[in-house]
């Protein structure tokens, strides 16, 4: 072949490796240049089986629907009915997940309280203690009891409405936390009893108990300190949902909070977020099965979190057996996180709206994941609360709409029989038949 033939003959199209993708290669180069693993906020970004892999069947001849806007479809629920003297009553089955003051600004925490209260639901403290803003603006406030015990004290324990013993979270089952120095303002430092500006590590294990037998005694102590009034939640990451649920119930939990791998975090290694834990969808049925095996389904309530976005996700989680869901990332977006209005500033940081996740750096232009007064000053907690309230109400309406279409007078009457699955994986995980069939992988055909 001469040179002329070479220039005109067809050439192999350049093909990039799916294994060594541009993003993968960029991360290798970043690691090589810096020597530090990537830390970011949020939950798993990879594609995993999710609620989109399920559909509702709706009513027809065999089941009849309820009239939208005219026939009642209730959304209220009570949590903590097992042992607590003062169970919690919520108007909607969507709660706000624990997010710390420190990771979030004080005004953002206030907005979460305002929004949740307007919508008739609860909000939750986080790893850093209870702030006056969130207590004052939250009708129902859940106080997290975390391994770090930052800000933990008996007075706040008594003025909360429920206690959530955090064993793990979906973004990092088995992992602790880190609030980097740039977010440690004077107030955050004081609440956590640590010097300003240093990285604050949150332990991965509780300092004074290990295992379910100890947890049972720890729960006894918490109940004794609070006169057996407060419901005790136990929050677990989506690792081994059947066994963890069983053990938490055995230890005396009133409520189980189960967080799948799409659940967010303020800051953790990207590799941890993307490679540890199970998808939310895969966690629900094993947890429900554990409760059923104990004869305590609905007596011990189950709250599911991790990637909940809209009323259909809510309805699907409830249909699979949950009593409520919890939202974190979605609540932040409702407040204004990752809003395109800040695109120019996102671009300056080398990112874009929808992808901004360096929350640990404290540079959030929306004023939500920062302690910088110039940035938090941009955030209006009243408006933020209103936006969150609107969003929560829309989600509840959406879930009601679906429930009515399935003929349910309460969203808790939704059941697995209202669902079909679109994929083999989702079917296997949820024990719901694949659409158009009566087949569930691993099960005999249902007649």
């Amino acid at each position: 072949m001469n040179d002329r033939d070479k220039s005109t003959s067809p050439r192999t199209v350049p093909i990039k490796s799916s294994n060594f993708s541009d993003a993968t290669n960029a991360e290798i180069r970043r690691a090589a240049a810096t020597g530090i693993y990537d830390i970011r906020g949020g939950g798993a970004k990879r594609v995993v089986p999710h609620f989109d892999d399920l559909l509702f069947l709706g009513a027809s001849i065999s089941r009849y629907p309820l009239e939208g806007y005219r026939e009642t479809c209730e959304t209220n629920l009570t949590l903590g009915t097992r042992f607590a003297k003062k169970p919690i009553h919520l108007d909607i089955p969507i709660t706000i997940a624990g997010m710390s003051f420190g990771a979030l600004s004080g005004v953002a925490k206030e907005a979460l309280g305002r929004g949740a209260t307007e919508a008739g639901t609860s909000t939750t403290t986080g790893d850093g203690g209870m702030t006056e803003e969130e207590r004052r603006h939250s009708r129902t406030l859940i106080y997290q009891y975390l391994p770090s015990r930052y800000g933990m004290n008996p007075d706040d324990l008594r003025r909360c409405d429920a206690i959530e013993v955090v064993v793990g979270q979906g973004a990092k089952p088995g992992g602790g936390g880190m609030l980097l120095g740039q977010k440690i303002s004077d107030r955050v430092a004081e609440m956590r009893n640590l010097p300003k500006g240093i990285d604050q590590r949150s332990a991965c294990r509780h300092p004074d108990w290990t295992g379910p037998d100890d947890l049972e005694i720890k729960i006894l102590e918490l109940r004794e300190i609070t006169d057996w009034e407060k419901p005790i939640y136990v929050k677990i990451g989506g690792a081994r949902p059947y066994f963890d649920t069983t053990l938490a119930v055995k230890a005396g939990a009133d409520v189980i909070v189960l967080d799948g791998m799409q659940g967010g975090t303020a800051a953790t290694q990207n590799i941890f977020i993307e490679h540890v834990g199970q998808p939310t969808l895969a966690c629900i049925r094993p947890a429900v099965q554990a409760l059923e095996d104990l004869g305590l389904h609905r007596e011990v309530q189950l709250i599911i979190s991790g990637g909940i976005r809209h009323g259909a996700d809510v309805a699907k989680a409830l249909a699979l057996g949950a009593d409520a869901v919890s939202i974190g990332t979605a609540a932040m977006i409702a407040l204004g996180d990752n809003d395109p209005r800040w695109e120019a500033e996102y671009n300056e940081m080398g990112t874009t709206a929808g992808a901004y996740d360096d929350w640990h750096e404290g540079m959030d232009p929306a004023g939500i994941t920062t302690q910088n007064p110039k940035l938090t000053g941009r955030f209006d907690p009243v408006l933020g609360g209103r936006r969150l309230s609107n969003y929560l109400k829309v989600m509840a309406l959406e879930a009601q709409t679906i429930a009515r279409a399935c003929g349910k007078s309460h969203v808790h009457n939704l059941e697995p029989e209202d669902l079909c699955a679109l994929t083999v994986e989702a079917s296997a995980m949820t024990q719901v038949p694949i659409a158009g069939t009566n087949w569930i992988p691993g099960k005999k055909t249902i007649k």
Partner: protein
Amino acid sequence: MRIFDLETESLRTLNKMLQAKVHDTNQAHWQIENPKGGHAIAVGLDAFIEVTVIGSAGYYCGGMNKKATINVQGSVGPGVAENMMSGKIVVEGDASQYAGATGNGGMLVIKGNASSRCGISMKGIDIVVHGNIGHMSAFMAQSGNLVVLGNVGDAFGDSLYEARLFVRGEVKSLGTDCIKKEMRPEHLAILQRLLEEAGANCRAEEFTRYGSARKLYNFNVDNASAY
């Protein structure tokens, strides 16, 4: 003095009664009999009362204590004085794991020995142990003072923040980022006061001070082997 017998009355009744004493009270001294290693005895107290436990207690004795003075005339299980805010707890015998864990204030005195993880994640409490303590003690200790008259086990003060550690005996090994430090006059003064308050008959000059090297306060890849 009110005597409360845990053999005939319930833990719930006991704690409720003690916790109710939030204001000035005529009943300032309580004696608890037959604890028999029971858990969560005298937790969540919030008044200037004196409680004497005749015998040994189980987990979390005096947990989250505020203001009260608790004397255990026996030994205690794990987590004695956990998250204590103020007041004083004295254990005449030995203590199990996590003594004084995450304590914010007040003083914990253990006349015997304490087990592993004594003072873990302490946040301002003063702990004085007349005997020895076990491994991983003062792990991630944030502030306050830990005084040990005897010896200390492995990995002492691992990942320490600003807590001050004083040891009279031997330390088997130091944890990551924990170093021996100079004992300056202000430290001697603090230590002497603590020793006197804890009824320890020894001199501050006999002790060695340990503290944080502060090398792990901000992430640095060159310290990766320490993480």
